[in-house]
Every structure is written in C-alpha cells, then in structure tokens.
C-alpha cells in the first residue's frame, strides 16, 4: 500500500498555534478528490485556522503533524507553491489590493497555476518573476475568463475594478469563487463563504461552487450554519471543537446539528 495517493489530501495529527495560543490540537482528516466535506463547529473551534494553516498563512506556527498532497508535505512549501500544486482557499476576509484590477490579477494567477510546481525542478523552474514568464496571451485568457464570469454572473465592470477594493461583502465572496473557477484547483477550501451573503447572493455562489464540483476536485466547506449545506450538499460532515475533529458523519449530521445545536455533542454550554 502506498502511503499516499495523488487523489487525496491527508491531514495527520496537525497542531498549530498563533503566538502562545494553541489552536489546532491534533487534527486528522482525509479528503479524496471528488468529495465535498463540510467542516462545522462553534466559533473559535479552529475551523478558519485549519484553512489558513493548509494554505500556509505565516501568522500561524505549525508545531506538529503533516499535510500530505501529491506525495509532498505541503507544510514545507511557501503558499505560492501550494497554490501552484492546486490548493485553493476562498478567504473569509480577502485582502484588497488597490490599483490592481481583478482581470489583471486573475491572468497572473492563472499563469502561475498553469506553470504548476514540480519539486524535482526546484531551483531551475521559473520562479514566477514576471519578466521570465511568457504568460497566456490576453485574448486567449479572455475567453477562459468569460465562461467563468458567466457562471458567476459578473460583468466586465466587475473585473475591471481594483481587487476587493471597496467591494461589498457579497462582491468579495463572488470574486473569491470567480478566482476558484479560473484557477481550477484540485483541492479547495471555502472558509465561511456563506457569511455576509443574502439569499440571492448565496444561491449564485453556491451554484458556482456546484458547477465546479467534479471528480477532479476535493473540497472542504467551512460553515457555521447548516444553511449553506442546503445548496452545497456535502458527502461527509465533520464537527470541530477546541482544535480537534470530534465527530464525523454524513449530511444527516448537519441537519441534526441544525436542530439540536452543538451542545449535545460537546457536552457543555456554548456562549457566543
């Protein structure tokens, strides 16, 4: 038996902290391609931290464990290499970059993703410096982009705006899913993509996500509420609490949580 397969992302005994505070305390989770997992749990249980640690946010220090993807412990890689391997995080609070249009940014990101990451060519591979990168011709990229724009129901005005600069909450989420659609990740994490969305925006975003689901992509959908899962049906549902996954089940588990809250599971009163 191989220790890993190219078709899954494996998280083993993952511990991480921010400053002196341990947030992840031994997370174990495997997501296969083609599967959609939901990660639920009360606020402060470590869901967003897990998402950020998988992507490589330098704010968090990993103290133990590994995350295996395509035979690599991706915890050793910088975030850009993880992205080029096919990992994607739809941020809960994406940063804004004034002066850089969504379209220009997407083209650069698309080229980087296409370039990929091959550890055996470390050091000789183009490092992503723009002068060395040939890049997709704008007209070719434009066609790819148009299809994704239609899917997410965004117009030309939207992609010529500066990235997340002055975007409403809903627009930011839509931009995140647009990026996901363009970059075609193999493993996607959606961090509270439903928060701050009204029902119409939620529907558009969920439709977008559903359209991207397929045998080539595994995803981890982080949400506090069952609501999103009415639109994006998960194959597997996990509950996280105090930095560990304490329960795993099928989509019935989400419905149960909706009905009863988290208290029956964790055996204590939650104050939020």
């Amino acid at each position, binding site marked *: 038996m191989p220790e890993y397969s190219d078709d899954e992302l494996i998280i083993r005994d993952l511990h991480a902290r921010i400053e002196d505070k341990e947030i992840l305390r031994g997370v174990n989770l495997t997501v296969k391609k083609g599967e959609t997992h939901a990660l639920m749990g009360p606020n402060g249980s470590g869901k967003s931290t897990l998402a950020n640690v998988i992507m490589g946010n330098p704010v968090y220090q990993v103290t133990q464990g590994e995350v295996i993807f395509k035979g690599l412990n991706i915890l050793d890689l910088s975030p850009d290499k993880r992205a*080029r391997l096919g990992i994607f*995080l739809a941020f809960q609070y994406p*940063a804004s*970059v*004034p002066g850089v249009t969504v379209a220009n940014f997407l083209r650069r*990101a698309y080229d980087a993703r296409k370039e990929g990451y091959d550890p055996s060519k470390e050091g000789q591979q183009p490092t992503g*410096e*723009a002068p060395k990168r040939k890049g997709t011709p704008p007209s070719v990229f434009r066609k790819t982009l148009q299809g994704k724009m239609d899917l997410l129901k965004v117009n030309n005005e939207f992609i010529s705006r500066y990235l997340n600069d002055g975007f409403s909450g809903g627009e930011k989420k839509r931009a995140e899913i647009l990026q996901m659609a363009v970059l075609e990740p193999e493993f996607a994490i959606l961090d509270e993509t439903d928060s701050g969305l009204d029902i119409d925006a939620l529907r558009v975003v969920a439709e977008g996500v559903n359209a991207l689901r397929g045998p080539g992509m595994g995803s981890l959908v982080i949400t506090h509420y069952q609501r999103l899962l009415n639109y994006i049906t998960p194959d597997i549902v996990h509950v996280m609490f105090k930095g560990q996954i304490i329960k795993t089940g099928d989509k019935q588990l989400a419905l149960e949580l909706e009905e009863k809250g988290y208290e029956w599971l964790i055996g204590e009163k939650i104050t939020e």
Partner: protein
Amino acid sequence: MSADPILTDDEYKYGFSQPENYVFKSRKGLDHDIVQQISDLKKEPKWLADFRHRSLDYFFKRPMPNWGGDLSDIDFQDIYYYIKPSIKAGDTWNDVPEEIKETFEKLGIPEAERKYLGGVGAQYESEVIYHKVRKDLEDQGVIFVDPDTAFREHEDIFKPYFATIIPPNDNKFSALNSAVFSGGSFIYIPKNVRVEIPLQAYFRINAQNMGQFERTLIIADENSYVHYVEGCTAPTYTTDSLHSAVVEIVVRPGARVRYTTIQNWSKNVYNLVTKRAQAYRNATMEWVDGNIGSKLTMKYPAVWLMEPGAHGEILSVAFASNGQHQDAGGKVVHVAPHTSSTIVSKSISKGNGRSSYRGLLKVQKGAPHVKSNVRCDALLLSDQSRTDTYPYIEIEEEDVEVGHEASVSKVGEEQLFYLMSRGLTESEAYTMIVNGFIEPVAKEIPMEYAVELNRLIQLEMSGSVG
C-alpha cells in the same frame, strides 16, 4: 516569509561605460577660468559670458542648503564641468561616434524614435550629440534645438525668456547651472500647433566624476500642445557624479504642456534640479515626475498659475532603494484668481531607502476662488525604510478650496499572503502591490513609458535582471 526578503543588491542595467575619445575635456574643478573656457569654446557673446561669471559668484556666495538631503559629501573641485564628446551634433545616428551610438542603441533610443517619437535630442556628457525633429513638425514651425543653436539661430524668441522663469540667483544649484550650463533643449511650439507624439530628450553621463548641467526652455505658444519626455542614465562608479539641470517652461494662453521625466541615474549621481513653469490664461501645465535612480534627488517641479483659468498638475512617483534618498514633491503658486491645481505624490521606500515628500502650496493675496488638492501616499516595504512628509501650505486668501490628504502604509502580511495563495511568488506579490500603489500616476503616462516605469520598478523589486 522573512520581514524584508527583497533586501538584495540591486542590479542596474545601464551601469556600463564606454572609452573616452573626446574632443575636449576640461580639467577638474570650478572657477572663473573654467567658466570662461566653456564660454570661449562655445564662442558666446560677452553678455552671456558675463551672465555665467555673475552666476558663478552667486553660487560661491550662497550657502549649501541645510534641508532636504545630505549634500556634505559633494566635492565641487573634484568634478569635470565640461566635456565635449564630438565635434557636432548629428542629425542621423550614423553621424554619431560609434561608441556613443552604441550606448544609445543599448538604451533603446533610436528604436523608440522610429516607433513613437516626433523628435529626439540625445545628450552625452556636456553636449547634444544627436538631434532630429520630424519634418512635418519642422514644417509647422516647431523648433527643437540645443541652447547653443537657440542663441545662434533663434535669439529673438529664446533670449527674452532665457533665465527669466528661474533667475540664476534663485537657489545655489540654479546659480551653478547658470554658470556652467551646456546642452539641453530649446523648444518652441507655434500658435495652434498640437504635437500629438512626444518629443524626447535623453541625458547620458559616461565619464567618472562628471558634472552634467543641461538647460531646457520650452515655450508653448497660444493654444498649442506638446508632450516632452526626458530620460537619463549613467554608469555606476564608486565616485560621485553631479547632475544639476534648470528647466523653464512658459505655457501661453490656452496651451498645454506635459513634461514627463523617467529619472534613472545610477546610484552614485547627485540629482539636484530646478524646474519651474508659468501657466497663463486657461493654460495647463502638467509635470509627471518619476524618480527611480540617483543617490540623492532634490527636485520639486513647480507651476506658477499666472492668470485666471490656469491649471497645474504635478504627479510624482519616487522609489528609494538601499542607499538612496528621494527628496521629491512639487510646488504650486496660485498668483491669479480662478486657478486650480492638483498634486499627487506616491513614494515607495525599500531596504534602507528614504523618500520624502516636500511640497509647497501657495495662494497669493489677490488670488481668491482657487481650488487645490494635494494627496501624498507613502508605501514602506521594510522596517528600515523611511518616509517623511513636509507639506508647506501658505494661504493668503479667504475664498479658497484646499484639500490635503496624506497616508503612510506598509505592505501587509495579509496582502502578501493573499496574493501568494494564488500562486504569485513573494517578489511578484510585492511588485504587484507596488505597481497597484503607483497606478493612479502610471495610468497618466503614455503606455511605452508606463511600461518602462513598471519594468524599472520590477527590477528594483526583484534585484535581478531577466
């Protein structure tokens, strides 16, 4: 991610030098004999020689500025004040001595000229070595020559304005320039003539310990338009060079002048320049000032709004890397009522680089109904970099609308992580953030030069040449 991953040695693509096969090279140092020698070589009339000597006295008398950057290391006696590289300026590149032509080819000037320029003046050391204006512009009466030619052939229009916008005794460095000036441009755009493609001047220093002191005068007659672009580079030496120019511009009623500078001196050049324009009724003056190179730049392009309806605009981008100090900004003086102005300054400091915004907004008594807006933003890329803002505002009228905004920001970990999470390398992410930061100014520059500006910044950011 380290705190400052881009603190690498910057490579400078234009740091090469060529052998000196010069027609004439003065001895080092500055005194009345040198000034007389320059004047004699140029066969100048007595009044002009007197003007130079008088200016030198002003220079000696004036104290060094004690503000701005550190000027204490400049040794004025260790500089060559005049080098004549060739017998005369060519009007085809084949007339230009081989190694000089080679230099300008490396700088891409002949190619740019073929593609998108209406005229080119190329200066090497102290003299313009190539000069050409497109025939159709010449036929419309456009004049684009060096000052020596202007005195000889166009004295009637040149002399009445020469040194009137910036008198020799304006400041220590305008006095220095007035004493030893050589090369530069005189441009005259006749009434109603619109020059739709840019005219470009390029300034190259080649010799070590060189001083370059060109002088430019632009007169845009009524309802005319011109866009003048200047670029500059020099070899990298361990000793310092000095560039001190004077640029005077007259924008007559209804005319518009845009003056774009992409300053990319090597990091051993002191760049101490005085630039001033006067804009008359309904005229517009725009300075687009990009400062990437030099050891120390002190330059504050100025617009004097002389008559109602005049508009002034100053867009400034400064990039200070290791060992550099960019003391840049702009000055606007509202002399007349119903005038308006905008200053936008964007500065970036990297490594231990230092950038300062120094600006003056003045509304004189008798100039009500004035509108002005000043915005200066600074971006810091490292903990060791520094930025300062010195906004001087003097308002002597009641009925004015003046806005001033300033911001200082650091490239956030959050922004970097976000861009990197989409596959951009760290240096690419930095570059993208910086390019976005200067976008409001870059979009005002013609595409070719905006591309050049972005490319220069990219080189500064990555510390390598692709």
